[in-house]
């Protein structure tokens, strides 16, 4: 294998183990004497718990513990540690449940069957409270209140504003206002959540859990149990996907740890698919009202965006979503004036959380669809309209963010070429015999600079230990949850030290064994942030070894030492060098045995409010609409994207494909269908996630930029493209059929109804729906 892995199709370091089933996920782990847990969940959307009797369950042979809310410390938790008033969750309900699935009690028993049998023996008397299931009901005067501290059910509001909005609209020749709605969808990660807790004789906890954020789980678990942070050790085993749904402390983590401490036995909880779909986190449904003004020639003048986020029963990551949707609303194009107001609204549904693209899929479905509608009205080709307004390198969102590298305009040109856009799009809508193509674009953050968790540690850290046998060990808390970051971080290290991939070993995602800290996997942050930390650590090792070779060969001080092909040598006189292993041995001896170790950290500073750097891209989807059945098949997707410098083309391709798959489900078929607070389609039979056989042909090119803030020039690629897919497909459906969707998903039935002129089924009567945020009511 090459010793220059950067830029190559390096296969996943964990690929073999995962493909053969050897990889160990949390639910594969088992400890002697381990108990199995199960959770009792509320069957009603909103109620007071009048009476709770666990005696029969506790008496069932094999049951070792039954825990209810009053057994646990009354410590609320939530990821927004920076603003404690947003922390509104308890692991188990105390006196009140707020959604169907809210956790009420936990049982641990000698096996899973016994635990489930015990659940059935717990008697709960619910006194129903009126419930609210949509934005309007939740915000109506006199609506039932979910949390007393939030009497208007609006838990978070955020604003962004720059430029002179009035002047912008005043000078516009063409102004349009549209309302868009997007639905709740599931992360549908293949591995349902699972957790395994073990307590030592002092009550300290080791928790193996399926998480994207070991450090966050460590801190919040400690706080809920009254322990000090480092009395909890969180270990992340192999994780089967997260997509934002596994970045918080969850009730089963708390229950497992609590029961492990109480019983002295290890305790495991493993959720079922049905639990995940019916009660798990989801992408925020939103209603977005957008007003935008253009000059006759297509120049953007102003945008006014109001967004209501349906948050469900608790805040979860809602505060961040409420900000980000406004940030993404200002991306992609140069808006001389922009105003955003967003509000996060509680309802009696399972809470929404972070999900791939976080705020962008919703914001950009609105932005991009509206651009396409405006292009149609102005008689300008949608790609030309975008090129006229596209963000360029160095652009700013005043007081919020600065755009560094930006290949957006080139992405637009490339995707137009690849797809034969100018030729194919000339046809009018609905004239292509059911065929059509459409465009959507994206921009996304490469890691967040925000510190809502209020960590006092670096955002990412790495330690590199070099050994005299030629191997190195990389330690980092960064968490590969399937996206491939372990591979990329090892590539970065091997490249910098001039060694081979197989010379690198890695320990990751263990809060006791890996250097503090790491905020986890979210916001497409790992390659940039942990990557930079790895680079810094590697450079310290490199410096140390270079010193040895300089000494050994008495190199002139102007001579550069390079680490390449397993050698440490003069770049100018390659014959003057020694193998990496030998250089490490020398350094150790020269330091009286002290190991060769490098330590690196990364914390973004002075980079605005959002991110170190943004990715960009443009996507064209081709579809075939069956006019008689309403079925849309996506036949081809072209993507041109700027993810900085490509570190691993195969990994980048995988991310783009994954984004297309998820974006396609968002566009056409996925939706958690709710009725009276219950999820109607809580199984993969009826939750219509596209499968491998539904995938269109995908063609992607990278418009490479070199971002000085990324390791080797890299930016993100794991989340951005997902936001382009739904608007591109929706636009293609318009081109194919003449129907312009402003709501998702565009199911066959909805599309057919719309084409047949039946608006009631298509749900297009929302034009009058308000996105106004009511004046805050006094807080209790």
């Amino acid at each position, binding site marked *: 294998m090459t010793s220059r892995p950067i830029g190559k199709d390096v296969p996943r370091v964990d690929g073999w183990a995962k493909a053969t089933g050897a990889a160990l996920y949390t639910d594969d782990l088992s400890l002697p004497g381990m108990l199995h847990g199960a959770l009792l969940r509320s069957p009603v959307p909103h109620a007071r718990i009048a009476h709770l009797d666990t005696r029969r369950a506790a008496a069932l042979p094999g049951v070792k513990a039954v825990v209810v809310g009053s057994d646990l410390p009354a410590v609320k938790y939530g990821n927004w540690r920076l603003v404690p008033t947003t922390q509104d969750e308890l692991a188990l309900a105390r006196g009140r449940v707020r959604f169907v699935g809210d956790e009420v009690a936990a049982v641990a028993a000698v096996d899973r069957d016994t635990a489930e049998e015990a659940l059935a023996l717990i008697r709960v008397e619910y006194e129903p409270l009126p419930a609210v299931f949509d934005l309007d009901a939740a915000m109506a005067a006199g609506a039932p209140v979910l949390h007393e501290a939030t009497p208007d059910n609006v838990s978070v509001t955020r604003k962004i504003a720059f430029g002179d909005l009035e002047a912008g609209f005043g000078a516009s020749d063409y102004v349009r206002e549209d309302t868009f709605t997007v639905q709740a969808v599931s992360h549908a990660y293949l591995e349902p959540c699972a957790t395994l807790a073990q307590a030592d004789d002092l009550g300290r906890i080791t928790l193996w859990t399926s998480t994207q954020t070991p450090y966050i789980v460590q801190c919040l678990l400690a706080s809920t149990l009254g322990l000090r942070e480092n009395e909890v050790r969180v270990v992340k085993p192999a994780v089967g996907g997260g997509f934002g749904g596994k970045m918080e402390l969850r009730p089963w983590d708390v229950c497992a740890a609590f029961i492990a401490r109480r019983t002295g036995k290890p305790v495991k909880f493993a959720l079922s698919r049905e639990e995940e779909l019916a009660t798990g986190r989801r992408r925020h449904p939103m209603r977005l009202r957008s007003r935008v003004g253009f000059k006759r020639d297509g120049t953007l003048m102003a945008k006014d965006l109001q967004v209501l986020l349906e948050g469900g029963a608790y805040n979860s990551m809602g505060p961040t979503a409420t900000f980000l949707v406004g940030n993404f609303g200002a991306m992609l194009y140069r808006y001389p004036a922009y105003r955003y107001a967003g509000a996060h609204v509680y309802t009696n549904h399972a809470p929404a959380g972070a999900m791939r693209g976080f705020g962008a899929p919703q914001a950009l479905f609105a932005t991009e669809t509206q651009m396409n509608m405006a292009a149609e009205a102005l008689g300008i080709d949608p790609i030309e309209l975008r090129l006229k307004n596209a963000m360029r390198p160095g652009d700013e969102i005043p007081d919020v963010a600065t755009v560094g590298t930006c290949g957006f305009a080139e992405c637009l040109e490339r995707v137009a070429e690849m797809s034969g856009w100018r030729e194919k799009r000339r046809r009018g809508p609905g004239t292509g015999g059911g065929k059509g193509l459409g465009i959507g674009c994206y921009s996304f953050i490469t890691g967040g600079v925000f510190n809502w968790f209020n960590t006092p540690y670096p955002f990412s850290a790495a330690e590199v230990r070099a050994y005299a046998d030629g191997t190195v060990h990389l330690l980092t808390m960064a968490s590969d949850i399937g996206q491939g970051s372990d591979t990329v971080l090892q590539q970065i290290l091997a490249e910098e030290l001039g060694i081979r991939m197989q010379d690198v070993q890695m320990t990751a995602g263990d809060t006791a064994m890996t250097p503090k800290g790491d905020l986890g996997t979210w916001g497409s942050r790992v390659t940039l942030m942990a990557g930079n930390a790895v680079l810094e650590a590697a450079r310290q090792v490199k410096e140390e070894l270079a010193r040895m070779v300089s000494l050994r060969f008495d190199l002139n001080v102007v001579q550069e030492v390079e680490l390449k092909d397993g050698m440490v040598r003069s770049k100018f006189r390659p014959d003057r060098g020694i193998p990496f292993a030998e250089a490490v041995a020398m350094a150790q001896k020269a330091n009286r045995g002290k190991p060769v170790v490098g330590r690196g950290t990364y914390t973004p500073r002075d980079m605005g409010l959002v991110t170190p750097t943004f990715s960009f891209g443009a996507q064209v989807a081709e579809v075939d609409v069956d006019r008689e059945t309403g079925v849309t098949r996506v036949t081809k997707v072209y993507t041109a994207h700027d993810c900085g410098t490509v570190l691993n083309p195969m990994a980048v391709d995988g991310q783009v494909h994954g984004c297309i798959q998820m974006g396609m489900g968002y566009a*056409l078929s996925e939706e958690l269908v709710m009725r009276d607070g219950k999820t109607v389609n809580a199984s993969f039979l009826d939750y219509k996630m596209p*499968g491998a056989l539904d995938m269109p042909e995908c063609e992607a090119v990278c418009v490479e930029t070199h971002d000085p803030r990324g390791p080797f020039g890299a930016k993100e690629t794991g989340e951005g493209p997902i936001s382009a897919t739904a608007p591109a497909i929706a636009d293609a459906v318009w081109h194919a059929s003449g129907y312009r969707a402003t709501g998702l998903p565009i199911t066959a039935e909805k599309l*057919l*109804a719309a084409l047949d002129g039946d608006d009631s*089924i298509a749900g297009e009567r929302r034009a009058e729906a308000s996105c106004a945020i009511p004046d805050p009511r006094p807080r209790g």
Partner: protein
Amino acid sequence: MSLCKFAYHGPETLDEVLALLAEHGPAARVMAGGTDLVVKMSRGQVAPAVVIGLKRVPGLGDLRFDPVHGLELGCMTRVSDVLEHPAVAAHYPALAEAAQATATVQIRNMATIAGNLCNASPCADNAPTLIARGASVELRSPRGSRTLPLAELFRGPGQTVLAPDELLLCITVPPPRAATGFAYLSLSQRSAVDVSAVGVAAGLTLADGRVAEARIVLGAVAPTPFVATAAADALRGQRPADEAFPAAGDAPAEACSPLGDVRASAGYRRKMVAVLVRRALERATARALADGRARTARPAEVTP
């Protein structure tokens, strides 16, 4: 999810199977591929005390074809066996279409046609075509054997006329006929791995360029596979035009009784019946016309 406790038997002869069925009666379930049974057991929808596996009984999986007797599918014939068999491809393309519409490769390698029928889901993909094709089933118990037209097997969702001690032994499909074509079309939201919201089998025999006989059977739009006899009979004597039978789907769409659920509304299902019936007839017509005898000669005997 926990399975109920049950005893598993793996008999090696048909007689042993029948003896076990006689002994345990309603407490027992036979298991073919298990792709329905195990799912239902783990959901607690059925809780048999005894499970009788069929896979060790030799010969039950045989698929036989000859031009005189037609096609015979033993009860352990897998969906993938049907899909891959050259005789099915040559003479029963609609059966292959239905098999193709069933689940995924992995499931098809386990799932049996008989299991698909005995499970009696209204949306079972293999029932409509087999019924349209005039298939019959042989039911065997220690008390003896009886043979029924397949359509008579079904009583309601999940319910058949099988007695507790009865085994569906084999499925027989009449031999292919001249100037005859069948087709199966289904509709679901995903292109694969999905339950059909609507399934339509249609077939016809042409004589002198006109419909001598037609069959239309619908899946997923009634408690049991729905045989649209009147609509099919109405086609008799018609001559397929460029767009064959533009309104042929309207009557079956009226006559069926679909439910609305999270997969599709009743109204949408009805509309789709109309579309799919027409399309299936078009495809069936093309197949029939591929046989030169369709236009000229009187086709062979027309009764099933």
